[in-house]
């Protein structure tokens, strides 16, 4: 798992670099007597909406504030053309963009008479507008499983506005719960499982920002097919990002030895040593998800001992079909051996930790004495 350590090491490097930069910036600001740059608009709270909108926007709203205004598509479906000023003023774009930045095809004379077969066809045809500014993000979506679907002609596949909204776009990093809910539009069942899991419950109920939301495991724009072996095998890396983070885990009293204990175990060793095998051969590798579940992850502590034993037992017998009820005791539950937890293993380890250095150092000394006595000619 050297990659994980690299990752952590890099994070430290980055954190250090950031501190150095901040410090340097503070020093420069002090010396030149200027104040540091004001935070970018994206970082300001969206609730602090400007009271007034630019004239260019006001001009559009002159008509589009009419809540009865709508257009009809070829299939008979209609779309309201009403834009709520409050929505737009509360969005991240209100400070930078005016209507025609996105709706560029429209001039003074519109309606132009452009017709679309359906409402969805209109939405899909206009979503590429975003790439004018968000080009890197757009290119990443082209590598996603969602784009694969779109390319295959599934027009319900999500595009920018399906997740981010249109006129009322919010900062997605600040609104993780909201962003995750957008996944539920299509992934209803999975979202319900997640919302009931140890992670989802605190995000949804308490807006706890420590827990992973959908995108933290699945990534944002280049979302990959999750059912693949590659995705499953990567789950230790994914989980370790948080579960190897000591300050974060100590907030909840969770052990960060999960990675070490996993790697020290038979399954973890297989995972580590089979990295270069074909995906087909790696099917057999057991990763975090195989025992802990995926979206429905529950806290083993809150579950209670008996329920947990039953879960582990079920997880074992997924592969070890003939495993008996007592077999899960072979698993040390991510805890390093101690006199209380796994006394037999602890005793064996303690004995050898003392005995090996004692015996080997003793023999080396004996050997040196022998050579010394032989060479000194008695």
């Amino acid at each position, binding site marked *: 798992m050297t990659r994980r350590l690299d990752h952590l090491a890099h994070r430290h490097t980055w954190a250090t670099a950031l501190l150095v930069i901040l410090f340097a910036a503070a020093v420069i600001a002090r010396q030149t007597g200027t104040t540091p740059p004001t935070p970018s608009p994206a970082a300001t709270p969206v609730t602090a909406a400007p009271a007034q909108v630019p004239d260019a926007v006001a001009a559009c709203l002159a008509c589009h504030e009419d809540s009865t205004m709508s257009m009809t598509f070829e299939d008979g479906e209609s779309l309201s053309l009403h834009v709520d000023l409050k929505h737009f003023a509360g969005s991240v774009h209100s400070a930078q963009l005016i209507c025609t930045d996105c709706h560029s095809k429209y001039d003074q004379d519109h309606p132009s008479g452009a017709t679309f077969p359906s409402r969805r066809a209109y939405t899909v045809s206009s979503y590429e507008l975003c790439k004018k500014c968000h080009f890197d993000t757009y290119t990443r979506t082209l590598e996603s499983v969602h784009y694969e679907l779109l390319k295959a002609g599934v027009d319900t596949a999500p595009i920018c506005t399906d997740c981010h909204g249109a006129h009322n776009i919010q900062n997605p990093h600040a609104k993780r719960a909201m962003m995750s809910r957008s996944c539920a539009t299509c992934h209803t069942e999975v979202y319900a499982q997640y919302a009931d899991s140890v992670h989802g419950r605190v995000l949804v109920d308490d807006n706890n920002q420590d827990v992973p939301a959908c995108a933290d495991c699945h990534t944002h724009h280049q979302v990959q097919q999750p059912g693949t072996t590659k995705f499953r095998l990567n789950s230790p890396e994914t989980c370790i990002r948080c579960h190897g983070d000591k300050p974060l885990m100590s907030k909840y009293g969770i052990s960060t030895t999960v990675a070490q204990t996993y790697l020290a175990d038979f399954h973890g060793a*297989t995972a580590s040593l*089979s990295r270069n095998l074909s995906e087909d051969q790696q099917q057999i590798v057991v990763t975090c998800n195989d025992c802990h579940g995926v979206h429905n992850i529950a806290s083993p502590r809150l579950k209670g001992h008996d329920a947990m034993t039953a879960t582990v037992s079920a997880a074992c017998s997924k592969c070890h079909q003939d495993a008996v009820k007592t*077999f899960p*005791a072979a698993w040390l539950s991510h805890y390093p051996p101690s006199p209380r937890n796994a006394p037999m293993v602890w*005793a064996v380890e303690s004995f050898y930790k003392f005995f*090996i250095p004692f015996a*080997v150092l003793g023999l080396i000394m004996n050997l040196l004495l022998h050579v010394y006595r032989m060479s000194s000619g008695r």
Partner: protein
Amino acid sequence: MPQPDPDEYVVRFSSWSRFQHAAVIVLFGLLLVTGMPQGWPTSDASRWVVDHLGGIFATRWLHRAAGILFTGLVVAHLTVAITGVLSGRMKPSMLLGRQDFRDAINNLRYYAGYTEAAPKFGRYDYRQKFEYWGLIFGSLIMVATGYILYFPIIISRFLPAELIPAAKAMHSYEALFAFLIVLVWHIAGAHLAPESFPIDTSIFTGKIRKEKLRHEHALEYEDLFEKK
């Protein structure tokens, strides 16, 4: 004491002994090469070895095959030794006695300069005997824990399942111990020690120079040549 001819040899090891030693070299080596990467699964060296052996699954099968052959060797050795000693065909020359512990202490006294001469040894000196018994018990531990790891499900049917991780710890540590002993003790003792350097060939050829025998196994030499 008549000086023996420097080119005169006596037979020290039977072909069965020499075969066992060669087999241990091959099997112990194979078990180490296939086993050690499993003990340090996250190191790049381990990955390199495993990849060159054809992947972790091939490596594990090789390890098990070598383990089964090694078990056969241990069983054969014990059978031959026990029946040989019981029927009187073999001398129990490897048995540890009080004299061996006395020799050990006297030898340390000699190293430290308290006595003028090293103790005289029989067919096997105390170091060889300790190493032999270390090998026997080490092998029994490795074989027993190895089969627990080979058949964990079956074991958990009859015995507490905590035996499995305990066996895993024991198998790893005992292997490390055996490796270190061979490294510092056996190779150093049989190759690098001044009287054997660069190599003590007797376990391969079966023969030992009479002079060397007289020097290193004086009591056996006396038994063979002076008490006729």
